[in-house]
C-alpha cells in the first residue's frame, strides 16, 4: 500500500507538471488550431531563466532564513521564468505564426517545428549541451545559528557550515562540523579564534516537499484559469475566438490581441511548469523541453484539445498511468514474463494512438462538425 501511495504521489506530481505544460498547448490550439510544437522549448527557456535568476538571487542572499528564504527566491525565479516564457511566446507568435496564419495548418505546424528546432539548437549554443543541477547546495534554504550555541561533545544531525558574513552566497561551502560526529573542543576554539560567530545548516529539499509545491502550484493555476476563462472579459473573448474566429472579429473582438494574450498566458503557465520540472528532476538542459512537451501535448489530446479542464485532467491521468505501468509493469502471464518497466516512454505514445483511434475529441472535448 505504501508503495502504491508513493507511486501515486510521484505520478501525480509528474502529472501536475504535464498538466501545467498542457494548458499552453490546449489554449493555443483552442484559438488558432495550431499545435505549437515550440511550447516545450518555451518551457525549457523558462526553466533556464529561473535557474539563472536563482543563481543571481540564491536563498542565502534573502533577508530571511530557512524555507522563507527559499520561498522568496523561488518566487522571484518563478516570476522571472514566467515573464520570460510569456514574452518569448508573444514575440514568436508575432514574428513567425501571425504572418502565416492564413497559409494553412500544415505550414503553421512546420513553422512551429522550425521554431522548436531553432530554440533547442540556439539553446545548445548559448548555454551548452551538458545538463546542470537545478537545486545546488548553495541554493538550498539555510538555517542560521550562532556558533556559541554549540558546545564540545554535541553531535549535530546535519553538516554545519561556516557563515563568514551575511549574506554569504559563496559557491564553496566551508564545513565547520560534520553530521553525526561529536564536536571537538579544539575545532570550536579554532573557529572562535578565526572570528567566526555564525554558522548554518542546510534544510533539505525532500521529495515530499517538492510534491506539495508542485501540486499546490497546479491547484492555484486551476483556480486562476477557471476565473480567467469564466469571469473576465478576456476569457469571454477567448471563448468567442475559439468558437468562431471570424464571427468574433465581426463582433468587435480584437482577435490579434486575444491571440497574443493567449500565447502569453499559456506560455507563462508552461514556464511555471518548466521551473517545477527542473525542481522535480533536479536538472535542466537545452533539450529538457522536448519529451515533457510531447507528453504534455499527448495529455492535452487525451483530455480533449481546446479544453482547459481537459488538459489538466489529461496531464494528471497521463502522469499517474505512466508511473503505475512502470511500477507494476513486470508480471507473469502463464509461463511468459512481461517486463514493461523500460517502456516508460512508449506508454504515452500508446495512450495517444489509442485515444486518437477510439475518441479523437478526447475525454472532455466536444466533437466539431467539419465545415465545408
Amino acid at each position, binding site marked *: 500500500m505504501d508503495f502504491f501511495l508513493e507511486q501515486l504521489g510521484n505520478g501525480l506530481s509528474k502529472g501536475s507538471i504535464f498538466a501545467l505544460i498542457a494548458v499552453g498547448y490546449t489554449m493555443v490550439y483552442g484559438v488558432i*488550431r495550431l499545435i505549437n510544437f515550440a511550447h516545450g522549448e518555451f518551457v525549457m527557456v523558462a526553466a533556464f531563466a529561473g535557474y539563472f535568476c536563482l543563481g543571481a538571487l540564491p536563498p542565502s542572499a534573502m533577508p530571511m532564513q530557512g524555507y522563507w528564504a527559499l520561498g522568496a527566491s523561488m518566487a522571484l525565479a518563478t516570476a522571472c521564468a514566467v515573464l520570460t516564457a510569456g514574452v518569448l511566446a508573444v514575440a514568436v507568435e508575432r514574428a513567425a505564426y501571425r504572418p502565416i496564419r492564413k497559409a494553412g495548418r500544415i505550414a503553421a505546424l512546420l513553422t512551429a517545428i522550425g521554431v522548436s528546432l531553432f530554440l533547442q*539548437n540556439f539553446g545548445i549554443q548559448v548555454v551548452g549541451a551538458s545538463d546542470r543541477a537545478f537545486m545546488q547546495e548553495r541554493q538550498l534554504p539555510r538555517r542560521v545559528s550562532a556558533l556559541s550555541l554549540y558546545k564540545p561533545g554535541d553531535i549535530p544531525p546535519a553538516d554545519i557550515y561556516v557563515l563568514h558574513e551575511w549574506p554569504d552566497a559563496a559557491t564553496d561551502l566551508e564545513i565547520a562540523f560534520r553530521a553525526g560526529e561529536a564536536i571537538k573542543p579544539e575545532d570550536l576554539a579554532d573557529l572562535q579564534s578565526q572570528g567566526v560567530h555564525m554558522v548554518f545548516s542546510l534544510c533539505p529539499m525532500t521529495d515530499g516537499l517538492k510534491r506539495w509545491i508542485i501540486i499546490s502550484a497546479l491547484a492555484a493555476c486551476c483556480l486562476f484559469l477557471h476565473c480567467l476563462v469564466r469571469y473576465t472579459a478576456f476569457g469571454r473573448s477567448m471563448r468567442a475566438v475559439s468558437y468562431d474566429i471570424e464571427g468574433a472579429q465581426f463582433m468587435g473582438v480584437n482577435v490579434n490581441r486575444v491571440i497574443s494574450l493567449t500565447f502569453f498566458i499559456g506560455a507563462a503557465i508552461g514556464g511555471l511548469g518548466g521551473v517545477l520540472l527542473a525542481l522535480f528532476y533536479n536538472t535542466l538542459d537545452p533539450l529538457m523541453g522536448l519529451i515533457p512537451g510531447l507528453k504534455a501535448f499527448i495529455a492535452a489530446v487525451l483530455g480533449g484539445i481546446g479544453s482547459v479542464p481537459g488538459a489538466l485532467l489529461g496531464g494528471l491521468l497521463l502522469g499517474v498511468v505512466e508511473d503505475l505501468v512502470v511500477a507494476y509493469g513486470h508480471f507473469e502471464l502463464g509461463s511468459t514474463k512481461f517486463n514493461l518497466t523500460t517502456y516508460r516512454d512508449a506508454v504515452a505514445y500508446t495512450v495517444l494512438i489509442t485515444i486518437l483511434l477510439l475518441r479523437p475529441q478526447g475525454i472532455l472535448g466536444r466533437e466539431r462538425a467539419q465545415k465545408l
Partner: protein
Amino acid sequence: MDFAVHHVTYVCILLMLTGGLSLIHGRTGLLSIGHAGFWAVGAYTAGFVINRLAPDLLAADATAGSRLLSVAAFAAAVVCAMLAASLCGLLVGVPCLRLRGDYLAIATLGFSEIIRVVIVNAESLGGAAGMRVPAVVCVGDTRRFVFAGIAAAGAAFSLLMVRNLLSSTHGRALISIREDEVASQLLGVNVTRYKVVSFVFGAALAGLAGAVYAAYMGYLAPREFGFMKSVELLLMVVLGGIGSLTGTVLATVALYIIPEALRFAEWSVPVWSLTDAGWRRGSVELAELWMVVYAIILIVMMLLRPQGLLGSWEISRLWKKPNQRPDATG
C-alpha cells in the same frame, strides 16, 4: 575518393526516403513526422534476416556458392524489409482514415517513437547498444562501389516509381485529395483507399532504403532513427517544393552536402555563451551552428515561400509542352 563514394551512397539512401515521403506529404498532403520509423523497421528487418540467413558466408575462404547465397540473402532481406515496412505503413494508414492534418502528424510521430522504444528494449535486435549486420554481397575494396551502385539503382527505382505513379490517373487522384478532400470524394475518388496506398507505397520505399542502409553500414543504432531524422527528411521534402519531385531531389542533395561541406571548411564564428559566472565570449565551428541555420532557413522559407523553393515545378517541364501537364496548383 572513398569519401565521395560514401557520400554518394548515403545521398542515394536518403533519396529513397525522401522520394517516398514526397509521395506521402508532397502529393497526398498527409503530413508524416515519423518517416524514420518506417526506415528503422526496414533496416532492422533486413539486419535480422541477414543475421539469420548469412551470418558468416563471406569469410576469407568463401566459395562462389556462398557468395551467391549471400546475394540471395540480401535479396531476401530487401523483400522482407519492404514487406515489413509496408505492413507498418498499413498500420499507420488505417488510423489516418479518421485523422486529419496535424493530428495525423502527431500519430505518425507517436508510432515512430514506439518503434524506437521497442527496438531499444528488444534484446534480439541488439537493444540500445545497436545491431551488427554481417557483410553480404561482397567484401573488400570493391564493396563500396558495389553498394554505391545498389543504392543508386534503388534511388533510381524509387524516383521512377514515384514519378510514374504521379503521372498516372492515381497520381491525379492523390493531388486532388491534397487540394480538397471533400471535393475529390464528391468526384468519385476513393479517398480512404488512396491515402492508405500512398502511405504503404512510401513506407515500402523507406523499407528498401532501410535494407540498403543496413547491408551497407554493417551496424544499426536506434538513435539514428529518432525524431530528428524524421524532421530532417520532412525538411528536405518541404524545402525543395511541396509536390515537386525535382525539388525534393535537389533539396536532399543540398541539405546533405551543405553540413558536410561546412565540416570540411572548418570555419569558426564568434559566439557569446551564458555560463554560471555570466556571459562569456568564445568561438564555435560553423558546422556546429548548422542546426540553428537550418531552423532559420525553415522558418524563413515558411514565411516567404510556404510552397517550397520550386513549388510544383518539375524539371521535365524543360522538354515537355506546358499544356501536357495539367497541375492542380497552377
